[in-house]
């Protein structure tokens, strides 16, 4: 792609030099000359009165991708344990593949993980690409990227989705750049456009105040990461799947990282995604003492304590208790939000709760838009009172 001057037509008028945003044109010996700084932006072309500046810049066209077929899911596993999100993604992949009349495949990489292939088939994978070897024992960015590069160039999948986990969010961008594909992060919905047949990827954007639907028209595979807990698991007991082993050419000297050890952190781990009642706090709770009030309420309800990103970053709650876009997604029977303004990132993680109660000083706080019951007031008055009455209620019922 280039811009050039037809010297015979140029009269050295300097209109182009004035127009160029990059100071890339100079007039020498009465003729315009385009230098190294030209970015082919084309700003000069229309300015020339003698049509002396020519350009071969073409309008962008969508290439033909008809040979790319199949919906692929990265089957993330660690130490032989399949991550739940991979199974969730197979559920969505079945739906997408059906609409496209294509097949669902899973990519399983590891060491001694053959058994997991059957699980993947039971949940919808018609093909499992199995890549095994000691070099793949631990997840490492470069080794797994290498495998995806080999598989994508061999099989040309149409769609490739991964969980938006710490591994998926490390691997997906690396693979996308390697195979030359666009990538959409942390999607909360995926669907197929009925006219164009392309993947529509929906995610929160602009500080989360807007949802954006994104398409990947110019490259294949169409890649996305998907938040854990969003898609439904769909068992597919009648699937007849085949396992295709893939022998990778990768050697250890091509991998520049080494896992020295994995340290499991034994935080009192509560599985919030299974909690029936959750009491959550945000910025308005102010401090650890404030969270103590919330904890008492949670205990009175036999529920669990959670919080927003602000609460996690302030150190009031552990990372495993952070609800929202960068935390976890929950669907309890009852979600009580205290001092939570309700930024979309937070709402994205809790709006599927069956009932939501919100306590906030600000009557315009967005949390009220997803609440069944709203209390505009000071949580430091309301929460202890609520705890007290619930304890009494329990005593009455226990009698």
């Amino acid at each position, binding site marked *: 792609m280039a811009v050039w001057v037809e010297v015979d037509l140029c009269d050295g008028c300097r209109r182009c030099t004035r127009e160029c*945003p*990059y100071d890339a044109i100079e007039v020498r010996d009465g003729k315009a000359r385009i230098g190294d700084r*030209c*970015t*082919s*932006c084309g700003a000069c072309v229309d300015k020339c009165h003698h049509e002396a500046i020519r350009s071969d810049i073409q309008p*962008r066209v969508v290439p033909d991708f008809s040979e790319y077929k199949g919906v692929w899911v990265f089957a993330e596993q660690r130490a032989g344990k399949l991550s739940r999100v991979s199974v969730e993604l197979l559920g969505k992949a079945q739906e997408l593949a059906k609409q496209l009349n294509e097949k669902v495949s899973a990519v399983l990489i590891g060491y001694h993980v053959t058994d997991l292939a059957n699980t993947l088939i039971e949940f919808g994978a018609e093909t499992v690409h199995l890549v095994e070897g000691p070099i793949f024992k631990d997840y490492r*960015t470069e080794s797994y*990227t290498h495998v995806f590069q080999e598989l994508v160039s061999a099989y040309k999948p149409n769609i490739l989705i991964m969980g938006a986990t*710490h591994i998926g*969010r*490390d691997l997906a*961008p690396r693979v*996308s*750049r*390697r195979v030359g594909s666009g*990538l*959409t*992060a*942390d999607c909360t919905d995926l669907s197929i456009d009925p006219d164009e047949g392309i993947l529509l990827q929906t995610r929160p*954007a*602009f*500080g*989360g*105040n*807007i*949802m*954006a*639907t994104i*398409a*990947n028209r110019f490259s294949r595979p169409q890649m996305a990461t998907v938040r854990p807990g969003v898609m439904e698991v769909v068992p597919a007991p009648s699937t007849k799947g085949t396992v295709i082993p893939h022998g990778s050419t990768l050697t250890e000297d091509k991998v520049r*990282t*080494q896992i*020295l*050890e*994995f*340290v499991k*952190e034994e935080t009192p781990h509560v599985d919030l995604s299974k909690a029936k*009642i959750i009491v959550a706090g945000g910025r308005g709770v102010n401090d650890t003492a404030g969270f103590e009030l919330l904890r008492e309420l949670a205990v009175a309800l036999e529920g669990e304590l959670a919080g927003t990103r602000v609460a996690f*970053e302030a150190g009031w709650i552990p990372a495993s208790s952070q609800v929202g*876009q*960068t935390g976890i997604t929950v669907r309890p*029977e*009852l979600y009580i939000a205290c001092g939570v303004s309700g930024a979309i990132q937070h709402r994205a993680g809790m709006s599927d709760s069956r*009932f939501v*109660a919100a306590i906030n000083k600000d009557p*315009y706080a967005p949390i*009220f*838009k*997803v*609440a069944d*019951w709203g*209390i505009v007031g000071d949580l430091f008055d*309301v929460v202890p*009172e*609520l705890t*007290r*009455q*619930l304890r009494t*209620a329990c005593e009455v019922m226990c009698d």
Partner: protein
Amino acid sequence: MNIIVLVKQVPNNTEVKLDPKTGNLIREGVDTIVNPDDLQALETAFTLKETHGATITVLSMGPVQAIDALSEAIGMGADKAILLSDRAFAGADTWATSFTLGKAIQRVEKFDLILTGRQAIDGDTAQVGPQIAEYLDLPQVTYVFDIEKLDTGYVQVKRRLEDGYERIQCSLPAVLTIIGGRSKPRYPEISKLLSACTKRAPIEVWNAADIGVTTAEVGMNGSLTQVIKTFAPKFERQSEFLEGSAASVARDLVERFKRNKLI
């Protein structure tokens, strides 16, 4: 040792509010900040500068106003800064962004380490760091919360996982994306900050021609993904507001819990 830190200027998210009537984003009076994870990356770089000695170059892509973020970084202790600013860069997705930053990094002299935040609070993608690492063919470690050791040719770091952390050794040069660790980002020093706001400040502004790219490769034209539709998130519930004293609203709430068999 030379360290490049990539930062982004972002809207101060906590101050972003929706108009209660229209549901639109209220943009007036929204100030900008240096992205929080990027501040952690800067702090990590300054700590390494103190312990190992380093020259720190800060690089950002954004509108001209983003120079404020670079001034702040210089106020905190960075040696020089480069802003990639060009109308042609606008509307870039992470593909085009990582290409543009990657091209610029290739023009910066030799470096040992590239540090950046795990993700920016406006886009939340966490993609640009790894995509730059791939573009430059460098190893990467993401979600880094501690640098244990920095030696000739390698770095030893801790990477956060959902249920613990990994200790990883990585050869240099490398790209590390940083999340909040033990130390709080330092405040800029007033004297340095003032000098960063003068004409002689060590801040350069580069455009598409300076990094040797065509406008078709960057910005919206160079992006592989496009936003095709935006819409307000669904608000599905009509909140019933309970009013009165703390005792009375608590009573009303407990009554509703019981009615719906929640307790």
